[in-house]
C-alpha cells in the first residue's frame, strides 16, 4: 500500500501520498499557491523544478526560512501556512524584484494577454514597482522560426530544461552569473548558428515574451489584399484539434469546419488540407518501407533499416546535426507540408491555370520548424519556395480575430477539392503514433493484398515516450518503434548507430505528444490534459471518416493516375522526395 502523510495546510487537515510536494498537496485541497517557474506536464513525465523564482514560498512551522512549496516535500505532522503576512510580503517583494528587471511594455508585447508574469502581477495586484535600478539589456535576436528577447526572460529555466533534458538538443543553456545570468546558445552565437532544431518547445513553455515565434501574419494580410495573387492555404491535422482553445472552447474540441469557414472568410482562394498531403506521404513512405523490406527479405544486406519517418522538420534538423553518419536511414519522402507545396505549384497550378509566380501557398501549422522548413533551398524552384510561408495555430487565431470573425458563431464548411479530401489516416498524423498507424493500414493491404478489418492499432497510441509494437504483415513480423520528444528519438537513434536496433520502422516526432504539442500550438500553460484531449479529438475525427486508409483516397488515386505515375517512381522522386545534409557542429580532432 502507498504510504501516506498527514499534514496541516492553512487549517486544513490533508493526507497525501509520500513524496507529494507542498504545492501539489495544497492545490489538491483547493489552496492555489501561486507559482511561476514550476511546470509539470505529468502525462509526459516532464517537469521543471528549479525552485528558483521563489514565488511559491510558504511558511513551515519550525523552519528558519520560507520554503518553496514546489520543491518541498510534505512531511508527517508538518504545519504549513500559505497566506501569512510574512509569506504574502515575500511573494510580493519577489514579484516586484522580477518586475524591476522586466521591460513593462505589456501593451505591445507579443505575449500580452497570454503571459504568466502579467497574470501574476494582476493576481498579486502590483500597482507600483518600488525598486528602480539597472535592467538587463540583451540584444533581440531573430531566426527563421524563433525570436529571442532575453530582456524579458525571468530565468525560469523552462526552455533550458526542454532543450536539454527533454529534447537533448543543448542549444540553450544558462550563461553568465548573478544579475547578468541569462539563457543563450553557447558563446552567445545566434540561434541560427547553433544546434537549434527549431522544434519550438522552448517557445511552448516560455511563461513570458522572451521566446516567441517569428510572426509572419502581416505578410499574409498583404498577399490576401493583392488581387494579382492567388492565395491558397493548407492546414495541418493538429491545428483543428487545438485552434478552438484560442476561442475559449474546451481543449479537444475539433473545429475543422469552423476553421475552414474562417479561412474562406479571410479571403483565401482555396482552402485545402495538409491531410491530403499526409495521405500522399503514406503512399510514398509506405511504398519506400515495403520496397526496403522486400529487398531486405530478398537477401539484400545493403538495405538501410529501420526506415525512419521524415515528416517532422525539427526531427530532420536533429538528425542532420547529431546523426550525420546515418543520413541514409530516414525515408527520403518530403513532409506533407512540402509535398503539398510541390504538388500545388505543379499539378494544381497547371490545372487551375495559375502561373507559379502568381500563386502563394500558405500553410497553417502547429509548428515553428515548418517556418524554417519551407525556407530550405531544396524546396524552392528557381528561388521560389513551394510553400511561401508558414503560420502557426496561434498566428491564425489572432488573424481570425483581426478579420472581425466571430469564430464560434461560424457554420461548418468543407475543404475545397481536389486537395482538401483526406482519409482518417491523414488526420491522425497530428498525434504521436499516427503516422505509423496510417502507414501500417496501407502497408498491410499493399503487402498482403488482403483487407485490413480492424484499422485501430491501439499499441502505437498514447503518451508513453517510446512505444514499440510488432505487427503481423501476413506472416512477416514487422517490428515498429515510435518516439516523441527528441530525447526519446536520440535513444532509438543511438541503438541504430550501435547496430543493436530491433526495429524495421520507426516514427519520430520532435514534440512531446507529436504535432498536437507543437511549438506553434495554443500554449498549454503546463496542463498536459490539454495535449491528451487534442490527441483524442484527432482519433475521434479519424473514426468518423468514411475512408480511413490513405490509398483509398480517390483524389490521391487520381493524382497518381493522371500525373505522378507510381509511388516512388521517377516523377514522384523528383517532386516528393528530398535529401539530407550534414550539419554537425562537432569539432573532430585531426
Amino acid at each position, binding site marked *: 500500500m502507498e504510504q501516506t502523510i498527514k499534514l496541516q495546510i492553512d487549517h486544513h487537515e490533508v493526507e497525501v501520498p509520500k513524496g507529494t510536494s507542498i504545492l501539489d498537496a495544497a492545490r489538491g485541497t483547493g489552496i492555489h499557491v501561486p507559482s511561476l517557474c514550476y511546470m509539470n506536464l505529468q502525462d509526459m513525465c516532464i517537469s521543471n523544478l528549479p525552485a528558483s523564482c521563489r514565488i511559491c514560498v510558504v511558511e513551515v512551522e519550525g523552519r528558519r*526560512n520560507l520554503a518553496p512549496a514546489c520543491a518541498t516535500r510534505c512531511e508527517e505532522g508538518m504545519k504549513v501556512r500559505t497566506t501569512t503576512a510574512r509569506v504574502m510580503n*515575500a511573494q510580493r517583494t*519577489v514579484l516586484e*524584484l522580477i518586475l*524591476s528587471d522586466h521591460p513593462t511594455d505589456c501593451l505591445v508585447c507579443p505575449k500580452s494577454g497570454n503571459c504568466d508574469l502579467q497574470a501574476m502581477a494582476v493576481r498579486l495586484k502590483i500597482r507600483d514597482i518600488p*525598486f528602480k535600478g*539597472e535592467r538587463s539589456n540583451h540584444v533581440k535576436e531573430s531566426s527563421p522560426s524563433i525570436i529571442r528577447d532575453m530582456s524579458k526572460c525571468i530565468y525560469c529555466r523552462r526552455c533550458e530544461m526542454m532543450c536539454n533534458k527533454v529534447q537533448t538538443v543543448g542549444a540553450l543553456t544558462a550563461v553568465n*552569473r*548573478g544579475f547578468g545570468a541569462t539563457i543563450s546558445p553557447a558563446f552567445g552565437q545566434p540561434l541560427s548558428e547553433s544546434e537549434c532544431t527549431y522544434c519550438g518547445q522552448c517557445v511552448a513553455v516560455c511563461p513570458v515574451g522572451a521566446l516567441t515565434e517569428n510572426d509572419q501574419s502581416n505578410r499574409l494580410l498583404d498577399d490576401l489584399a493583392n488581387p494579382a495573387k492567388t492565395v491558397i492555404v493548407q492546414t495541418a491535422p493538429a491545428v483543428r484539434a487545438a485552434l478552438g482553445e484560442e476561442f475559449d472552447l474546451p481543449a479537444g474540441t475539433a473545429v475543422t469546419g469552423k476553421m475552414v469557414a474562417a479561412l474562406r472568410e479571410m479571403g483565401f482562394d482555396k482552402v485545402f488540407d495538409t491531410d491530403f498531403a499526409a495521405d500522399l506521404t503514406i503512399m510514398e513512405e509506405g511504398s519506400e518501407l515495403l520496397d526496403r523490406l522486400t529487398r531486405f527479405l530478398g537477401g539484400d544486406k545493403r538495405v538501410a533499416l529501420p526506415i525512419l519517418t521524415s515528416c517532422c522538420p525539427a526531427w530532420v534538423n536533429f538528425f542532420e546535426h547529431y546523426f550525420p553518419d546515418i543520413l541514409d536511414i530516414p525515408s527520403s519522402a518530403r513532409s506533407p507540408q512540402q509535398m503539398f507545396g510541390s504538388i500545388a505549384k505543379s499539378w494544381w497550378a497547371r490545372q487551375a491555370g495559375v502561373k507559379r509566380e502568381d500563386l502563394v501557398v500558405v500553410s497553417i501549422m502547429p509548428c515553428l520548424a515548418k517556418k524554417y522548413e519551407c525556407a530550405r533551398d531544396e524546396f524552392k524552384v528557381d528561388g521560389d519556395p513551394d510553400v511561401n510561408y508558414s503560420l502557426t495555430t496561434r498566428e491564425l487565431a489572432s488573424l481570425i480575430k483581426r478579420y472581425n470573425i466571430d469564430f464560434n458563431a461560424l457554420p461548418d464548411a468543407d475543404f475545397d477539392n481536389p486537395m482538401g479530401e483526406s482519409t482518417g489516416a491523414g488526420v491522425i498524423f497530428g498525434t504521436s503514433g499516427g503516422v505509423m498507424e496510417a502507414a501500417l493500414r496501407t502497408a498491410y493491404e499493399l503487402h498482403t493484398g488482403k483487407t485490413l478489418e480492424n484499422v485501430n492499432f491501439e499499441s502505437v497510441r498514447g503518451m508513453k515516450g517510446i512505444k514499440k509494437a510488432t505487427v503481423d504483415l501476413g506472416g512477416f513480423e514487422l517490428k515498429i518503434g515510435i518516439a516523441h520528444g527528441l530525447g526519446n528519438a536520440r535513444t532509438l537513434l543511438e541503438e541504430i548507430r550501435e547496430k543493436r536496433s530491433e526495429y524495421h520502422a520507426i516514427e519520430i516526432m520532435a514534440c512531446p505528444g507529436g504535432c498536437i504539442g507543437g511549438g506553434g500550438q495554443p500554449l498549454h500553460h503546463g496542463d498536459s490534459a490539454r495535449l491528451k484531449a487534442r490527441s483524442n479529438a484527432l482519433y475521434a475525427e479519424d473514426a468518423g471518416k468514411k475512408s480511413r486508409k490513405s490509398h483509398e483516397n480517390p483524389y490521391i488515386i487520381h493524382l497518381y493516375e493522371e500525373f505522378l505515375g507510381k509511388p516512388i517512381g521517377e516523377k514522384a522522386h523528383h517532386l516528393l522526395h528530398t535529401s539530407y545534409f550534414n550539419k554537425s557542429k562537432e569539432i573532430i580532432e585531426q
Partner: protein
Amino acid sequence: MSYKMHVLVCGGTGCRASNSLGIIAKLEEALKENNLAGEVQVIATGCFGFCEQGPIVKIMPDNTFYTRVTPNDAAEIVKEHIIKGRKVERLLYKDPKQQASVSDSRHMGFYQKQLRVALRNCGFIDPENIEEYISRDGYAALAKCVSEMTPQEVVNEIKLSGLRGRGGGGFPTGLKWEFASKYQSDQKYVVCNADEGDPGAFMDRSIMEGDPHSVIEAMAICGYSIGASKGLVYIRAEYPLAIQRLKIALQQAREYGLLGEGILGSDFSFSIELRYGAGAFVCGEETALIHSMEGARGEPTMKPPFPAEAGYLNRPTNVNNVETLANIPVIITKGANWFNKIGTERSKGTKVFALAGKINNVGLIEVPMGTTLREVIYEIGGGIKHGKRFKAVQTGGPSGGCLTEKHLDVPIDFDNLLASGSMMGSGGMIVMDEDDCMVAVAKFYLDFTVEESCGKCTPCRVGNKRLYEILDKISRGNGEMEDIDRLRNLGKVIKDTALCGLGQTSPNPVLSTLDNFLDEYLVHINARKCPAGRCKELLSYVIDPQLCIGCTLCMRTCPTEAIIGERKVPHTIDTDKCIKCGTCVEKCKFKAISVR
C-alpha cells in the same frame, strides 16, 4: 641522520611571495660554507600564521622566531645564531605595546592565547615529506580506525566529539557522516570542499599547504566510516601551491600503502582524486560544488535531497570542509573526550580565523571556541593599528555581519555569533576602525555577493543587486528615509526566500550595519555627509584661506584644473571639476586643504 638544529622557514604562499625560497637557498649556502649542512637542517614548512611579520624563520629547538627575514639575513643568522649562539636582535619580533623584543615564540602575545589543533603541524613539518607527518602521529588515526574500530564506532566517536562543520554552516560532522553511512549504494564518495572563497580567508589553503596529509588521512577515515572507496578534493585552481603539495602527498600516501587497495592490511580500499574549481564563490555551497564536479553549471539545487542521499553522480556523498577534516585525525588519536573538553557547550574544539583589517597582528590564528572577540583583537591581534579607535569587526566573510564594541566580550562560537547578527562563516575576521564608513563597508560586501551570485534564484539575482543599488544611492548622497525601510524589508525577504546559503546570508552586512550603525546611515541620508570620509561623492575639498599662501603648487598638480587662484592669493576649488583624488591635500605643505 639526526640534526642538532632545525631552521624552519615558512613555505606558505604569503612568505613565498616575499621570497622565502630565496632565504632557504641562502641559508643552505651559508651552512654549507660553514660545513654545517650535516648538523643543521633547513625545512620549508607550512604557514606560521603570523603573516604580518613574514617571511618567518624559526630556529629549533630554542623556538627563536625571526620576522621579516630577507635572503640577505641568511648569512648573519648562520654566523651569529647557529655558530655563535647569539640571537640576531634586529630580526626578533617587537611587541607593539611593550616595544621589547620577544625571542621565544611561546612568549609572543600572538601565540599565547592560541590553541593549534587544526593547524597543529603547520609551521612544524615539511609538508612535502610524509615521514615528518608520520613522526607526529600521522596516519595513526587511520591505522586505529581500520584495525581497531568499526565504521559505526568511528561515526560515534566523531559525534561524541561535538565537531561541527568549519565551512560556515556548523552542521554536526558526526551526524553528517551517519546520514551518509545509512544510505546504501554501489559507490559512495567523500568530498573535501577546498573551494575556499571568502575574500581574505586562507585557513584551508594554509592547511593544505602546510599539512596536506591530515586532510588525506581524514578523508580516508571518513571513507572507512561511511563505506566510501573514492574521495575527491574540489580545490580552486588559484591554489597552485596547495595543489602541488596535495599531489605530492597523495603520491607519497599511495607509495606508503596508506591509500589504495587493502589499506594497512585491512580490506578497506580508498583512493583520492583532485578536481579543480574555476573560482566561483558559490561553488563552495555543497550542491553547487557537486554539480561543478559533474561538469554541470556550478549552481545550487534544493535540499533535500541532501548529498548524503543523492550527491556526486547521484550517489551518497559526504562533503566536508578542509578545516573540519584537519580536526578528524586528532579526534581519533586523542579521543572525542579530549576534543569535547575544548570550547563551549555547543561548539567544541577550536576555530581558525584569518585576522585582517586595521589590526596590528594580521595573520592566521586558531583559538578555542569561547574565546572572546576582545581577546582575539587586543591580545592576539595586538590591538588596533596606529592607536585608532575600534569600530567594528566583520566575522563570517562577505555574508557575515558587523559586530561592535558591545559584542567584544561575547565568547565566539557558532550560536553566539548567529545570535549577535553575524555568523562564524569560514572564519574571516576583519577589524575596522574609526576611519571605516559602515555604509561603504556594507556596499563593499554586497558588491562581492552581487558579483558572485550564480543568478539562479530571484532574491539573490535581482534582490542583492537592488540592495546594492540602494546602498550606492545612499553613499552618493541621494538616499531617502524610505530607503532604510526598503533595505530592511528587502534584506529580510532575501534571507527568507533565497535558495542557498549565499543568498540567505548575503544581506547580513546590510542588516547588521543598519542595526548597529543606523546613525551613520541617517547622516548619509539627511546631512548628505560621510562621517568617516570614505564616500567620495559626499566629500568636498576645501582650501582654508587663512592657511593658504597662494604657492600654486596644488594648482599645478591638480589633474582636472579644478583649483583656481593667483600667486600669493589664497586659492579656491571648483567643486564641479574636482574629482576628489586627494593629490592637492598630499602636495600642500601648509595643511591648508581639508576634506569635509
